[in-house]
């Protein structure tokens, strides 16, 4: 019989995504076998993150404070807005250094089958921000799956009558990718979206 504290730790770890019961047990045994300061440092980091991190009041991305650093940065292009599904998507785009504008996080994608409708996402807030900030271009960077595409179509229709330019990030072959290991659907999209080559 496992000690109750260890059992509780395993059960909590098993709630994490991609962690099953076996992995949770392994992680728990590892943590309790370490010197006290290491699991406590992890516990403190978790506590701190839970206390300090929240949703940015402007873009609804992840923020340490009411408004995130990206929204506060006056050097960013105030006329372009990139729309993403999740807060973590912001950091992926930021890591590429290709976009210098503002972000808007929808909080998911439209999926009637999963009971997610436009009113469940931050779409009304997007309309309001675009109007208030005088945004000139919206770049839709929702995922290239069915729900992401439906959301992109919905947003395009929404801004059809406004002077705002709406664009969608391109789809196709990943940079440095290998044709041999690319799935058929990605290759098909890459061929559909081919462009004149002018080096």
């Amino acid at each position, binding site marked *: 019989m496992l000690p109750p504290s260890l059992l509780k730790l395993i059960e909590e770890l098993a709630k994490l995504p991609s962690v099953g019961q076996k992995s949770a047990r392994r992680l728990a045994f590892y943590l309790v076998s370490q010197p006290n300061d290491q699991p406590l440092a992890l516990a403190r980091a978790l506590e701190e993150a839970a206390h300090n991190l929240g949703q940015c009041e402007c873009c609804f991305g992840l923020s340490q404070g009411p408004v995130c650093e990206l929204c506060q940065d006056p050097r960013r292009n105030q006329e372009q807005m990139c729309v993403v599904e999740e807060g973590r998507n912001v950091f992926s785009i930021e890591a590429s250094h290709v976009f210098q504008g503002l972000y808007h996080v929808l909080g998911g994608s439209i999926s009637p089958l999963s009971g997610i*409708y436009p009113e469940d996402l931050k779409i009304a807030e997007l309309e309001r921000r675009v109007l208030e900030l005088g945004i000139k271009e919206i770049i839709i960077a929702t995922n290239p799956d069915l729900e992401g595409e439906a959301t992109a179509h919905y947003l395009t229709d929404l801004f059809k009558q406004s002077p705002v330019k709406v664009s969608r990030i391109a789809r196709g072959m990943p940079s440095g990718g290998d044709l041999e290991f690319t799935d*058929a659907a990605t290759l098909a999209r890459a061929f559909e979206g081919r462009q004149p080559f002018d080096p």
Partner: protein
Amino acid sequence: MVIPNLGLSDFRNYKRLEIEFGPRLHFLVGPNGMGKTNLLEALYLCTHLKSYRSAKLNPLIKQGEHRSLIDFHFEDRQVRHLARIELLKQNKRVFLDQKPLRLSSDYIQRFFSILFAPDQLAHFKEFPGQRRAFFDRALSILEPNYFAHLKEFERIKANKTQLLRQGRLAELGPWNKLMAHCIPNLVLPRARLVDELNQKLGGYFSRFSKKGVPLFLIYRPDLNPRDPDEALTLLTQKAPAELAQGFCTLGPHKDNYQVTMGQKMDRVELSQGEYRTAFLSLLFGLNEIFGTRCQIRPLLLLDDLFSELDKEVVKALFGHLEELDNQIFITGTDIPQAFQGAGKRYFVLDGTVEAAPLTI
């Protein structure tokens, strides 16, 4: 595909069976209710990973047992594989070359059985959905990406249906756009296959029936747009009506296939024997297309083939079956005169199968 051996454990009325097959023609002979069709069903499972007689797994497992095993080798493109299908009451597991198969769809997009069975013929004749499913399954192998497009369409339809049920007309736009883009990916391959089949049907039908009447398969797409834009216009126009009904009333899921013979149309006007001959012509035409398009030789599983066919048709069938390279399994209570001396014969009696002497 050729299956040189098959092992069954606790499958239907078979406690344990080990059987070897040749590369061509086989007869499974015996009185009714002895297990001939069960054996054919096991062979069908080897390519489709599901039964054509039962959607549930439980009836496939021998009474009183908790699982069935189907073990077999198969040869595909000169490579020999070992496969196991384990049927449990609630789920099944498939092992290919001793490794668990992660995606059934990868398997069923490679292998195919052409089945002729009384129940399946009745369903094909009666229900448009069965006919769509039949051709969709074949197209999943014949046309690259067809299976992915079909799954995509079904997902779009399910999302759209959810919106229609909730009366959300204003939100249909994105899903209609996605659907409009998807429709030609299904309609065009379906039309291509029917065109190709129609070039072959006449030859087979006149060979089997000796009638000088043309046989055609007609494909009636519910929507046949020139391009996705036209499909979108039609879907948008129909949206209020769909909303009133509460489900998707327009699209490839409503397509129909019909058989015509001269002036006679489909199940209403064709006799049982005529429909059987027409269906056999269709199956053999499809078999030929599998060979020419993708060098695949499906298993031919012909259950109770000879009933309701006259002697002349049976004789013509024999001539054709002798010419084929496929591995063929035919069940029957006896073997017609025309087939005497041909193929390997097995006598099926109450869950046992014995290789029979050449003359029964």
